[in-house]
């Protein structure tokens, strides 16, 4: 695992971005005007606070994503080793146990749709 390369390029890209932002901030004119630095609003004075209310659906989507993503991650090692299991004669056992797992997955998805967790209006 070339961890050094990954860390090197991540730091290099970050430094590249910081340098370019700093260089760009040195050029160009600057004129101060209080109205210019207000948050963008559609032509009216700013009225929203920063901690604005957010639909709870976003949290729900994130939680459901984590549940399903973990289930999908379990399929990855199964998929890589499936052929070796077939060769060693255990293919049927591995295949049907994964079918049971997928059935539970489908049941979860079905239940989620049924309970209207995915309805956006």
């Amino acid at each position, binding site marked *: 695992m070339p961890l050094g390369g*990954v860390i090197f390029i991540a730091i290099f890209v970050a430094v590249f971005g910081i340098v370019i932002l700093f260089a*760009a901030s040195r050029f160009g004119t600057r004129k101060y005007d209080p109205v210019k630095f207000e948050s963008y609003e559609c032509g009216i004075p700013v009225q929203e606070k920063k901690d604005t209310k957010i639909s709870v659906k*976003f949290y729900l989507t994130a939680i459901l*994503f984590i549940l399903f993503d973990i289930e999908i991650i379990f399929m990855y090692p199964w998929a890589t080793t499936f052929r070796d299991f077939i060769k060693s004669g255990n293919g049927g056992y591995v295949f049907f146990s994964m079918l049971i797992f997928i059935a539970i997955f489908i049941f979860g998805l079905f239940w989620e749709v049924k309970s209207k967790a995915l309805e*956006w209006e």
Partner: protein
Amino acid sequence: MGHDIFEISINAIKLIVVFLLIVQAVPVLVWLERRGSAFIQNRLGPNRIGPFGLLQLAADAVKFFFKEEFVPANAVKLLYYAAPVIALIPATLAFAAIPLGQPVQWNEYLFRLQGYEINVGIVFVLAVSSLAPYSILIAGWGSGNKYALMGALRASAQVISYELALGLSIVGMILIYGTFNLTEMIQAQQAPLSYSLLGFTLPLNFLPAWGIFYQPLGAIIFFAASFAESNRLPFDLAEGEAELVAGFHIEYGGFKMLLFFIGEYGHMIVASALMVLFYFGGYAIPGISLADLNQWTADHTASANAASLLAGLLTFVCFFIKLSIFLWIFIQVRWTLPRFRYDQLMDLGWKTMLPWALFNTVLTATFVYLAHL
């Protein structure tokens, strides 16, 4: 010790070149997108500066440099500045893991045409590119603007929803090739195509054994989901000009905006490269197997080093031709399809693409089981 330093410096230069490849591809893609969209919409597009308007890129870069530095009064300064820098990292890390050509053997030194060779390439690319919502969320929160926050939330909800379908559509691919390694995957796509089931074999020697012929459904799901992952139309709800004005980057301008652009186009490049790798034979030239290619270059050059170098260059060019075809599809789709509504988008991700990807997995597993029984 001297050998180690040589290897480390070669690898460092290689990684920087990979990053610069992405950075310099962005202005070209922007130009292509503006010209292409103009022709699709019956206009001319930028054509004044330089031949075919190609120097427009240079003019834009200079203009970006002389833009005024701007931080909105409500912004959280650190987050506001960190977001565009973070946007660069995931796409670069993912692209560096992708093999761009056949490795070059120069005497005893093996030069790989990729940033770093990772044994679990697929998992690494997926893991790294799923870090993209962080920069969007940081930008949305740091701007201190309700449009930016809404755009960021929508974008991250969309990206994580389509991540499920994307991850599942690859399981079928892994079942067929039985490996996470990207290079081994390309090697597995070299033989001529043949379907075998229950002792019967149907050889189709005129076609290569590309993934698209084994996984047509998976390919479609993967490609559609990668549009959503890279926030491109028809899934660009994050930006949604009509209702959110510009989405998460509404308070950004100048070079900060440009860095977001590089990140977004970087994701597009990574998605196209993965499409080529998984389903279209990677860097192999269609109709010529890698063994034949190596034989041909060995016959036409003086030394083994030169032959290896020539083969590496030819496969590299081939990879980029395939890559640019997919990049063009990305651009063409953007300018010909309208945008989804948000509830339709979520329905498509959760209730259509996820079940179909599951079906694809079960189907592939059944066929693999029957074929190897």
